């Protein structure tokens, strides 16, 4: 057996000599930590700590621990619901329906437009770089400005109400969906396209029979995902006046009806959970089928 060599398994710590330790250190320089690295780690932690202390001072976190009377009233209202008969449930559920409608219409229209723009922004479809880059930069602007900012702009332009919300979702989704669509088109299998082209098909038919069957499941799944995420974001577009349940939330919040606000928010959470579930089911049904 190898019990006589230095690298023998150690039975107890007392058998270990200083030479063994030194040899092990030399063999595995990183296992015992090196000074430079641990200094760096300490420096990172120290700077995070210093930054947080600075931020707590700069942003006056002490205010957190002296909550105003408002906070206490709000907390109390969360758990004590009064006059539940007078809450105008019709309005609340109409607002929720409006939210759904905004998300659905915005996503649907954006998907239609993105279907066209996606092809225009794809490297393997449009061979003119200048044109493609121009399309992409415009999409960047659509995407770079937040949906809520678009909503605010459209409220200014077309007035309060769900139309502004639909337009906001529409514009910001054109930016994102077109980008995702064009990436999907760029990642297709060339062989099917060549096969279709070899049969003498023109550009339109090549797209229809060579490309579209490959990308449609991806498009559908992405649009469904966006429908889901837009339902979430449509709930807050109303805060700037762009229709939907958010308008009811902000209205009742301003009227200091906090118990109703809590009720509406719970409803929104349930709505989002249902949408998540339904969208997952649809995605599994369609994508599972096509994906085989």
């Amino acid at each position, binding site marked *: 057996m190898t019990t006589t060599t230095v690298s023998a398994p150690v039975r107890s710590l007392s058998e270990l000599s200083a030479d063994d330790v030194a040899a092990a250190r030399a063999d595995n320089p990183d296992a015992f930590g090196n000074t430079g690295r641990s200094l760096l780690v300490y420096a990172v932690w120290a700077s995070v700590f210093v930054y947080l202390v600075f*931020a707590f001072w700069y942003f006056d976190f002490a205010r957190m621990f002296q*909550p*105003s009377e408002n*906070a206490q009233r709000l907390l109390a209202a969360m758990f004590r619901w009064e006059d539940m008969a007078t809450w105008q449930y019709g309005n609340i559920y109409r607002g929720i329906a409006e939210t759904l409608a905004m998300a659905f219409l915005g996503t649907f229209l954006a998907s239609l437009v993105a279907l066209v723009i996606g092809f225009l922004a794809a490297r393997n479809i449009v061979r003119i770089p200048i044109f493609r880059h121009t399309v992409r930069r415009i999409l960047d602007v659509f995407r770079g400005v937040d949906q*809520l900012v678009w909503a*605010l702009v459209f409220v200014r332009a077309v007035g309060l109400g769900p*139309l502004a919300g639909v337009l906001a979702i529409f514009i910001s989704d054109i930016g994102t969906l077109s980008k995702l669509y064009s990436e999907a088109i760029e990642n297709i299998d060339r062989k099917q396209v060549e096969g279709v082209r070899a049969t003498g098909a023109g550009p339109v038919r090549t797209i229809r029979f060579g490309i579209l069957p490959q990308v449609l499941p991806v498009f559908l799944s992405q649009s469904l995902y966006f429908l889901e995420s837009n339902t979430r974001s449509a709930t807050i577009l109303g805060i700037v006046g762009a229709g939907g349940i958010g308008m009811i939330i902000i209205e009742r919040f301003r009227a200091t009806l906090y118990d109703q606000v809590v009720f509406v928010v719970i409803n929104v959470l349930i709505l989002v959970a249902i949408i998540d579930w339904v969208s997952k089911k649809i995605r599994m049904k369609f994508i599972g089928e096509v994906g085989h």
Partner: protein
Amino acid sequence: MAVTVDTNLNDMGHREDPVSTYEKHRKELARAKMGQNLLLGALFFGLLVFSIVTSQFYPERLAQAGSRVFEYIGTIMPNLEWDKLFLGRDDQGSAIEGSLTFWYTDFGKYMALIWETILMAITASLLGTAGALALCFAGSRNLIKNSWIYFFARRFMEICRGVPEILIALVFVFAFGIGPLAGILAIAIHSAGALGKLFAEVNENVSQRPIDGVRGVGGNWFEQMRYGVMPQVLPNYVSYGLLRFEINVRASSIIGFVGAGGIGQELNRVISFYSDDRVLAVLILVVLTVTIIDLFSERLRMYFIGKEQL
């Protein structure tokens, strides 16, 4: 002579070629699916009509809206003149119309607010990551034996990320007053929920062996997490944390809409009360900031992921 059974005979005894058999089957399948497709189509169409009616998405309103949107875009365009573009202030200290200085009169104020926005995002990301770290181990199926703790950790994270940031901010503005504190807390809570979920998913894919090793030498639960799990997941945590930071920069740039600090407050004020070139001035700064931080953070993320793969 043996009688061969012709499998291509149909019920009437006629001969059928394989193509028509195939076509027949295809039609049967198509007919079976048609009912379902019709139902789905009707549902889709119904939803579409409902949406159009609810949001009053009618052609005449749309045409009107379209022209007003373009009109609005026209009003927010800056009035820049090429020959005066880089002129500074004149002797009286007022900017010359048509120059960049005139357009960005409040540049200093905007930059201060953008600085505040970035600090808000950093602080909220740090606090959110800390919250996620505290929650994620309890929300990982493989690391926690007590299913009650697991259940509550998961539900708590769901509520944190389920309520939109801007709603939490609305409440905090009301509770703690107008200012960035409300925004930071709101974004931090949302981040804790979102990051907690991602961290927990990373945790559920770790190797059990280092954890067993630490337990084997007598480490308690915290030591198992610290020395068994953390070294495996830290690069992923950093990468997710940076990604969240990018999202938080966007969030903190709009959270001011409800009075929770940052450039959003100015953006809201400018869009709501004026419709001139100031709107575009602030918007350009916001988009530039977000883009620059995205690029910077992407580099950093690549660095950490690259390290992980070594």
